[in-house]
């Protein structure tokens, strides 16, 4: 850090401090408010609040529903992140090559990410409608009968995962594509000269070069998918029989529907803590390299 010496540096410093203050305010105030709410028992946001200390946490941690929701969230998060990263890399490798119509294909690939989540959810609901849904009819024509997409626990989870992967894989693809295009072609040429095949080039050149991006993508997608509420709520509302009810939905249900504001806030706070711990573990094992150390 060279310090802020010139006048423009000072302006930059104040702009940085101002931005940081606003961000901290916007993050810390809701977090502290949620933590504060979790220490009270209250039936609504307008009812009298009774101080209960950690009782909400003890109650939630002793509730099998919390652990089931945590498990559902982990399954949903891990599968969606894994599939998004896997498919994202494959699509990025494909789009990194030169072929006719490439700009159009690249444009089409990003489309799902541009759609509002509610549109994606409605589209999937229509395609999977038990009577008129396109996929339902195709499944029947292929001899699978009419699948109970939203009645069967495993199918419902599959639908939620596939719709999430469909929507957010383009983000991963574009990120990896950007990373791929920074890899010098000379590295591949050198590898070829050394007799490396396609797989060897991918494993020994591509992966090491996109590793920093891969780490960031996994981190970002983990945060987003672990907290993902909209697509699950719009598609299944956590059903059937709570099979897709993960922690964000549980927190919402408790706070806004089941007259348990303290319990909902405790679930949200625990979810925040669990995610923070997971991220710290992630950083411990996969530290993001800064510029100086990489040099």
């Amino acid at each position, binding site marked *: 850090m060279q310090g802020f010496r010139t006048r423009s540096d000072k302006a930059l410093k104040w702009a940085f401090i101002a931005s940081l203050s606003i961000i901290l305010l916007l993050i810390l105030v809701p977090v502290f408010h949620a933590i504060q709410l979790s220490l009270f028992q209250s039936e609504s946001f*307008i009812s009298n609040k009774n101080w209960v200390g950690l009782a909400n946490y003890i109650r939630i941690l002793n509730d099998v529903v919390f652990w089931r929701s945590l498990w559902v969230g982990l399954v949903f998060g891990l599968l969606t992140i894994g599939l998004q990263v896997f498919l994202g890399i494959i699509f990025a490798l494909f789009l990194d090559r030169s072929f006719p119509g490439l700009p159009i294909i690249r444009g089409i690939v990003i489309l799902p990410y541009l759609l509002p989540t509610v549109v994606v959810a409605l589209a999937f609901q229509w395609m*999977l409608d*038990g009577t008129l849904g396109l996929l339902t009819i195709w499944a029947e024509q292929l001899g699978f009968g009419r699948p109970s997409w939203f009645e069967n626990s495993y199918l419902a989870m599959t639908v939620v995962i596939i719709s999430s992967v469909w929507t957010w894989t383009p983000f991963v693809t574009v990120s990896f594509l950007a990373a791929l295009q920074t890899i010098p072609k000379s590295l591949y040429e050198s590898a070829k000269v050394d007799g490396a095949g396609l797989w060897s080039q991918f494993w020994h050149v591509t992966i090491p070069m996109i590793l920093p991006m891969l780490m960031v993508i996994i981190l970002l997608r983990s945060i987003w998918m672990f907290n993902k509420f909209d697509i699950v709520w719009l598609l299944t509302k956590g059903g059937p029989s709570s099979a897709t009810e993960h922690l964000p939905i549980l927190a919402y249900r408790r706070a806004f529907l089941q*007259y348990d504001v303290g319990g909902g806030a405790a679930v949200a706070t625990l979810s925040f803590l669990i995610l923070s711990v997971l991220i710290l573990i992630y950083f411990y094992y996969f530290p993001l390299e800064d510029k100086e150390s990489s040099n």
Partner: protein
Amino acid sequence: MENHKELDVLTMQANEANQDKKIQKFGRREILKSAIAGAALFAGGAPAVHAQQKTIRFLNAEPSRDSVKALRVAAAEYERISKVKVIIDTVIPDDAYNKLQASIAAGTPYDIGTLAFAGHVFILADAGKLVPLNKLVSKHKWGPRILFPINGQNYWYPYDYNFCWMYYRKDLYEQKGLKVPTTWEQMAENAKALTGDGKFGVAQPLGNNAAAQWMSLGYMWADGVKLLDDNFSLVVDNPTNKPKVMAYLDFMKKLSPSMPQGMTQALFGTVLSQYSSGQVAHAPYAGRLMEVIEDKAPDLVAKTGFFMYPDSAGKGQAVNHGYDGWVVLNTPMKDESLKFMEWFTENQYINFLHSAPLHFQPPRLDVYDDARWRAHPLVEKHANLVEFMKSFLTRKDVIIRSVDTEGPRVDLRPAKMFETFAITEALQNVVYNGMPSSEAADIMAKKYRTVL
């Protein structure tokens, strides 16, 4: 008289000014001066005028075009006669309570709100946010199980019973030689007989949502099941009720092959469209279904009949309870809000009911005999349906129940039970997961106990 004189003088001055205008040409400077003076006058005067006008904010949760129109017309009429402005904001019913709650928490509460859940009335009243409406309510006679008094006070003014019963296709019944079912067995047989060729016998929502709890529990109520006793103790799994619950769950499993796919996703609109498109032969709903087929599928109107949910033995009948009403909030405008409500409920109540003439079932008994209400073409045309609906209020043998109104009085405990969706999960466990009904009933009871 003094005013008249002043007016005359002002008129004369204005006329003189107009005469002058014809001969005098204003320069640009004069025009600018006048404009600045006018703007200053407006800027200075506008807040004063605004401050003088009283405003009531009304949160409406009936988003249909006709209902919004009825409220807006009433608001305009009230402003005309009282100079009090009534602002109508509209949200979907599911959002009403949260919006009301948010407005209170933000320090800008609505003055009047619409609620569709007794538990929400209870919370707001308990927090001192509502004003009793005893004076308004006591002016009329009301049907049963609708006023939900809290500690002897009436905090809400109901406008709709929102009962749910069954509709069926009379023409298909005739073709197949079926009779209106009086038992679960007959209901299942009829639904089965009407299933085939891409058509289904019955639509019964089974998801974790309000639609399923409103449309699919009537059979259970008809069999006399109670969830809570008079002390708010859970009795759904006692030796009297548990066998009935199990039988109900088994009956729904038997009925399920006659339902279209996707019943866990089915909501209110799903059932309306399934019936009006001819996809299902039975559908549970309130008067809205008849309004919809009058509008979208008029050929079905004459082919549609209705009956209450039957019980297992042909002895009992039930309708599932639902309700909507208005509350007045404890705001600085509460006196004006009460005046507005007094005027509205005396002068515009029927107009508002006419915005959904068959769906908004009047909880006020005087309305049924009011020629103004009966004069609506749909109320006149469907007099038999209206009489059927009225019979829920007058017949002693009709069971009126819902999860959220269980127990001896309004309380948050049944409201919490409603939101657990334990009963719909039991249905899903039995119908889709093949769980024995006894086990599903036990899980349901256990889940209910967590909130009691």
